[in-house]
């Protein structure tokens, strides 16, 4: 994991001969050689919003649609059997990637958001009682806040939030105060999408579980960047999205411990998820099918499996190391610009650099960067309570992936400097 400060910037020459073969890797991502805004080469630094897709992912999906498309579990015909096998293989692949004990603990969803809503509405709505508490943190993405707000309103449970420090780390004293025998579930982001903070979820999960609480980890931002092992983390649920980890949109993953999934009722009903149906009543299939009503995202599951293969071929350790260098350089260069203030300076950070420029609105910084071909996010990052806590309406966020180069970091810094001049 990268540190926000301290590491010296790598020399520019490293990018050609870094730990990764960047030239080869970049050639696998067709979009990275495209031009935007008057012929500027795309510098894509909005990876926390969605990652780009390598050729093998795009090809796996076109191959499926061009030559293998069929619904699963329905036909006895050749193509349906092949599609069913490919869908199951994708589930196995995800289980291995996340360290789950069995692929039956892997539910495919539409994304992280749907995975968390599934737990809130299936487990939460049926288990929470007045007097119970759900604990989140101030830095959560709305996707890991609103489902809990809603289910607390529905059940009479109380929602509480762990405070953060000015550096953007979880306030452990606040956590210790708020985690009590009333806490039924602790829902926490592994990596903050807005700040890059890597939360000590393993340690917190152990403490939460010792109090009898379940633990849900929002892994939307960690699965693409850090090695993840759900058993090692000690969490009960883990949610992530395909499209943030080189895969397609429209597919996400919920890992849940089998014992919990088995006790949870379905939250959507329809085809595929039943055992037996009569006009009066029905019984449900075992997990994970119980939670996958209707035709699932088959091509997307195949695309996600190809994405995992790609990530593993590059190596998660190597990815983490290279992204740490990118962050160190960006932190150094942007942090040194007059009027720039980094937002989120946690000791443990993933490759997200959030910042503000004094007197200049993040949107305007984003527009100048866009004019140079640099794609960043400017806004509240779907984390409004966090922005309120930090006392700012928005930040500029550059978020990196392993296919980014040190030269791209330099382009970012030069663009920020230009923004400063335009609005001076």
């Amino acid at each position: 994991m990268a540190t926000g400060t301290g590491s010296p910037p790598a020399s520019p020459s490293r990018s050609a001969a870094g730990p990764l073969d960047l030239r080869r890797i970049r050639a696998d991502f067709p979009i990275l050689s495209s031009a935007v805004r008057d012929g500027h080469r795309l510098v894509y630094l909005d990876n926390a919003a969605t990652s780009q897709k390598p050729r093998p992912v795009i090809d796996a999906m076109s191959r499926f649609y061009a030559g293998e498309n069929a619904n699963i579990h329905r036909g006895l015909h050749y193509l349906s059997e092949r599609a069913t096998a490919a869908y199951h293989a994708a589930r196995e692949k995800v289980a291995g990637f996340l360290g789950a004990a069995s692929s039956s603990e892997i539910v495919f969803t539409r994304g992280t958001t749907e995975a968390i809503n599934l737990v809130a509405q299936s487990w939460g709505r049926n288990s929470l009682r007045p007097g119970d508490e759900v604990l989140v943190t101030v830095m959560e993405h709305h996707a890991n806040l609103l489902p809990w707000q809603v289910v607390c309103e529905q059940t009479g449970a109380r929602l509480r939030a762990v405070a953060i420090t000015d550096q953007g780390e979880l306030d452990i004293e606040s956590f210790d105060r708020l985690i009590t025998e009333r806490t039924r579930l602790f829902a926490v982001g592994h990596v903050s999408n807005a700040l890059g903070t890597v939360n000590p979820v393993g340690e917190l999960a152990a403490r939460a579980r010792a109090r009898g609480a379940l633990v849900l980890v929002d892994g939307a931002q960690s699965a693409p960047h850090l090695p993840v092992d759900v058993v090692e983390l000690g969490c009960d649920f883990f949610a992530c999205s395909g499209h943030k980890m080189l895969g397609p949109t429209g597919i996400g993953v919920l890992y849940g411990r089998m014992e919990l999934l088995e006790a949870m009722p379905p939250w959507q009903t329809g085809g595929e998820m039943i055992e037996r149906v009569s006009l009066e009543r029905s019984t449900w299939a075992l997990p994970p099918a119980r939670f996958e009503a209707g035709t699932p995202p088959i091509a997307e599951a195949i695309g996600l499996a190809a994405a995992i293969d790609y990530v593993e071929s590059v190596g998660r350790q190597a990815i983490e190391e290279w992204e740490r260098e990118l962050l160190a350089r960006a932190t150094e260069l942007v942090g040194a610009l007059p009027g720039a203030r980094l937002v989120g300076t946690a000791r443990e950070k993933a490759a997200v650099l959030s910042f503000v420029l004094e007197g200049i609105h993040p949107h305007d910084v984003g527009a100048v960067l866009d004019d140079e071909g640099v794609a960043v996010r400017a806004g509240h990052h779907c984390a409004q309570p966090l922005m309120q806590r930090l006392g700012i309406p928005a930040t500029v966020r550059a978020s990196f992936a392993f296919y980014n180069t040190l030269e791209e970091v330099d382009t970012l810094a030069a663009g920020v400097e230009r923004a400063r001049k335009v609005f001076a």
Partner: protein
Amino acid sequence: MSTLSELYQNVILEHNRSPRNYRAMEDADGRAEGNNPLCGDQLTVWLKTDGEIISDVSFQGLGCAISRASASLMTGALKGKSRREAEELFQRFHRLVTGESTAGGNTGETLGKLAVFSGVAGYPSRVKCASLPWHTLKAALESAPQR
């Protein structure tokens, strides 16, 4: 296609730096708050009316250069205008920033200084920034008593 310098014309940069009528109004008879949930921009518009005529307008808030300059230029353009003229001006401004008409083009639409926002049409994500002050003004006018 618009370029960055067409988006951020000098008049816009100048109004962003020193916005006009940037103050709360104690004795306003109309007031409204505007929010852009997409980017978190928020502003308050105050106004005073004298029957049909808008006698004073002011604003305060957080926003990008486009929304700040738009609010500043709007307040200048509206003083002394009737409610109906204000509504017409908003419609013309909206057509300009959405690209339905061009500044000083053959449509014969007179926008005066507001024509500096013509570059916004090339940046669809910024239309809301430019029009937020006007939507807020509309709500403020509705809150003011009509005689």
